[in-house]
């Protein structure tokens, strides 16, 4: 369980949508994530977990080409991100953070913008269905400036799905949604990924939802992958109530002394049982 899946992988497999090899990245010369190895294949929904400041967003920014790699290599759909950024970016759809959305445009204009970049149309029935499921339709002709956090997140999710890119990336996007919207967004992602040609990376703090939604999970701490779970391990960990949280707490507190581990896991178990 301790060994991250995809660790040390080399070469491009047929259904390998993302290969991250020895990636280090950060800001202003300061490395935030170090030596990250991660492979995402079609059919995977990878939960990216970690405390605040553990490097989740930095890793996702490095994967999507928003910050320069200090070391290592990222390949999307077999295309090296550093060598051919434009071609590589065809391979993923990122749900942009709410505050980064173009506030003066309406939701429809924003979707038009993304669709025109991805060379697809948003007028078909499938799209109307997705918009309806996310309950976005009443807002589409209003300026994004008027949107709430949750409505912005819905728009970001809708835009990330445009053109059906093979790899979908959500950086805590689901956190701001209401329960119905979270459910619909998860269903949309699961349906797409279930088709066998897509994958998703979902960074989240909703740890309890990970075993049911994700097929794999990766835990970051202090900029490194400390633990990863595959499907079977996730199922085993989630068999008991609060089992996955226990498993995560153990991984996080490893090396901090037996007392800390015992205290944390006992508290976690007590919380899970009371919940």
């Amino acid at each position, binding site marked *: 369980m301790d060994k991250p899946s995809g660790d040390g992988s080399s070469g491009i497999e047929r259904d390998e949508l993302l290969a991250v090899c020895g990636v280090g990245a950060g800001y202003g010369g300061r490395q935030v994530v170090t030596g990250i190895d991660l492979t995402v294949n079609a059919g995977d929904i990878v939960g990216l977990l970690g405390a605040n400041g553990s490097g989740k967003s930095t890793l996702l920014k490095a994967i999507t*080409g*928003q910050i320069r790699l200090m070391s290592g290599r990222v390949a999307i759909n077999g295309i090296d991100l550093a060598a051919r*950024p434009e071609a590589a970016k065809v391979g993923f759809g990122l749900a942009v953070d709410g505050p980064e959305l173009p506030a003066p445009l309406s939701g*429809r204009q924003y979707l038009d*913008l993304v669709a025109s*970049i991805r*060379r697809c149309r948003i007028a078909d029935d499938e799209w109307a269905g997705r918009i309806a499921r996310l309950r976005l339709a009443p807002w589409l002709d209003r300026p994004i400036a008027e949107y709430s956090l949750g409505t912005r997140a819905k728009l970001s999710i809708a835009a990330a799905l445009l053109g059906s890119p093979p790899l979908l990336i959500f950086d805590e996007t689901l956190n701001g949604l209401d329960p119905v919207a979270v459910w619909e967004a998860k269903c949309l992602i699961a349906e797409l990924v279930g088709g066998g040609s897509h994958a998703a990376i979902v960074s989240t703090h909703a740890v309890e939802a990970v075993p049911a939604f994700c097929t794999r999970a990766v835990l970051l701490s202090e900029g490194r992958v400390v633990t990863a779970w595959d499907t079977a391990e996730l199922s085993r960990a989630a068999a008991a109530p609060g089992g996955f949280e226990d498993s995560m707490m153990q991984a996080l507190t490893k090396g901090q002394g037996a007392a800390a581990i015992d205290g944390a896991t006992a508290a976690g178990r007590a919380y899970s049982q009371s919940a």
Partner: protein
Amino acid sequence: MRYDGLVLILLWHELRGTMRTQRPYDLAWITLGGGILVGYGVADAVVALRNASAVLRHEDLLWMIAVPSGLFGFGGLTASAIGRLTAARAFAPFLKALPISLEARCRAAGIAALLMGIPLLVAAGLMSAAASAIAGPPFPLAYGFLASGLFATGYLAGLALGIARARRGDQADPVLTSRSCGDGSHPGILGLLDRGRPAWLSSWAWNIPGRVRITWRLVASALVLFIVVTISMAASLVSHAAAPAAMAALAVGIAVFMLSLRFHPLGSPVLRASPIGFTHARLRLMRLPFKLSVATFVLPASVAVAAEPASWEVAAGSGIALLALNAAYAAFAAYFMTAPLLAVVSFSAAIAFCGYESFEYGRTVLIGFATLVAWLWHKARSRYNYG
């Protein structure tokens, strides 16, 4: 008062944060290169003033009207920029939730702007006194004080206007403000022009959802450009000389391009994490400003040809110069993508410096300017692709 230093503290932390995110190598380049350039500029200005002192000493209009009114205007413009900077901090959304009164915010913004204006005031006074000592009227010290006073008057007037505007903006209803721009469901003419791939990019760049809002600033800018063009065209037609209208065509063309070009979407993950290259996105953002620039160029350039048909090459030359200047400015605007005012000031300074120096050193300076443009373009592209 309790919150008087708030804006200064915020600005100081921002400056420290920015310095920390810079690599030491880049900081050294900026400090050393900038210092050398400023030193060279000052030395060059002193030499030029000395050489022209015999003529300048008798230019009473220059020293009594042009320089003082220039300093007054410069003070106002500087205060407007600094006031906007400080007001943005005083009225920041995260501060709105705190129990700080509107008056306290205005005072904090004003005090920060006043303190930031002191070194500028001293610099304006010292430079005026030095210029007066080298090539100006007698009593340079008195002239320096007079110049400082005029700069301070302009600065205070500009600051008062800026703070009042920020105060009004803070009290305005953001939803009503956004509604006054309309929404995307009924796009105006701009909406029809802004459908090329990627769609709505110019609307985003101009912060308008497809409809141009008529503001007093837009009307004033259009009026100034209209007057300049009309007077120049009349001068050309009366004197049967192409030069006035051709020069106006060039000046208005580049002014429109500089006023309308906005590259801030290049910094957004919406574009940077999308499969669209830097060159494509940049050219798309340049498309409408370029069309506007050409549209404003065509009429005075045509008048220049009509006024003196034999000198058609003057109009053609200003057209080529417009293309070159637009391309050069686009590199500055891409580099300073979130600070268009800085792009305008640095481009104007670079053009003025190159124009002046090229008389002395010829093509070498133009090659240096072209190298600077290429370097800015490369840095902007690199930042877009790799952060």
